[in-house]
């Protein structure tokens, strides 16, 4: 049972345009969400995160939107650049007793930004 789903395995966007990557989750206990970018032969790189008490968080060209009622989040990249071409993972975490924090990942979306 996939608790975090990224239904689009791939996305192609023209340089300078907006890239929108989507993620859905099923576990109502998730209260923190993160996006990671991964280049081949490297580990995932943390991009941006959002707590469930917010519906938007912005950092430079990256904005994450959270719709709790729909259990949906999206990552917007504006403007898209060729260097943004990578696999993007959505991840979620649930606050539990104690301080341990387990991340549950989606299967990723390959973004290709065309020059």
């Amino acid at each position, binding site marked *: 049972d996939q608790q*975090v789903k*990224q239904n689009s395995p791939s996305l192609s966007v023209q340089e300078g345009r907006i890239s929108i990557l989507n993620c859905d989750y099923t576990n109502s206990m998730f209260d*923190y969400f*993160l996006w*990671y970018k991964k280049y081949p*032969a*490297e*580990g*995932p*790189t*943390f991009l941006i*995160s959002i707590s469930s008490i917010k519906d938007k968080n912005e950092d430079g060209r990256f904005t994450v939107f959270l719709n709790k009622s729909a259990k949906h989040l999206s990552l917007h990249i504006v403007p898209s650049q060729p260097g943004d071409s990578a696999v993007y*993972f959505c*991840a979620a*975490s649930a606050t*539990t007793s*104690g*301080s*341990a*924090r*387990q*991340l*549950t*990942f*989606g*299967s*990723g979306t390959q973004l290709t930004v065309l020059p």
Partner: protein
Amino acid sequence: DAGVTQSPTHLIKTRGQQVTLRCSPKSGHDTVSWYQQALGQGPQFIFQYYEEEERQRGNFPDRFSGHQFPNYSSELNVNALLLGDSALYLCASSLRGLNEQYFGPGTRLTVT
């Protein structure tokens, strides 16, 4: 400022053997998590360590075990290797209680 480091980079083992992977966390971090990433999938949580104890565990068998040392570095041990254990093993470090985890480059394990 050194990020998360992992060793070795690549490893080839035979079914039934045992393997140990190593991780040094980012400077200032006290918590280490291990993930397994199969081809075409997202990372799957194995376990998390802080204060030298396993604090949370994912859905992995007891063949997977770990250790955290006083300097916060960590090891992942896998016994009785199966072909299905072939994957990229990622180590991530963080500050205790925080969600943002920072990943190393991974160790590619191939079981033949």
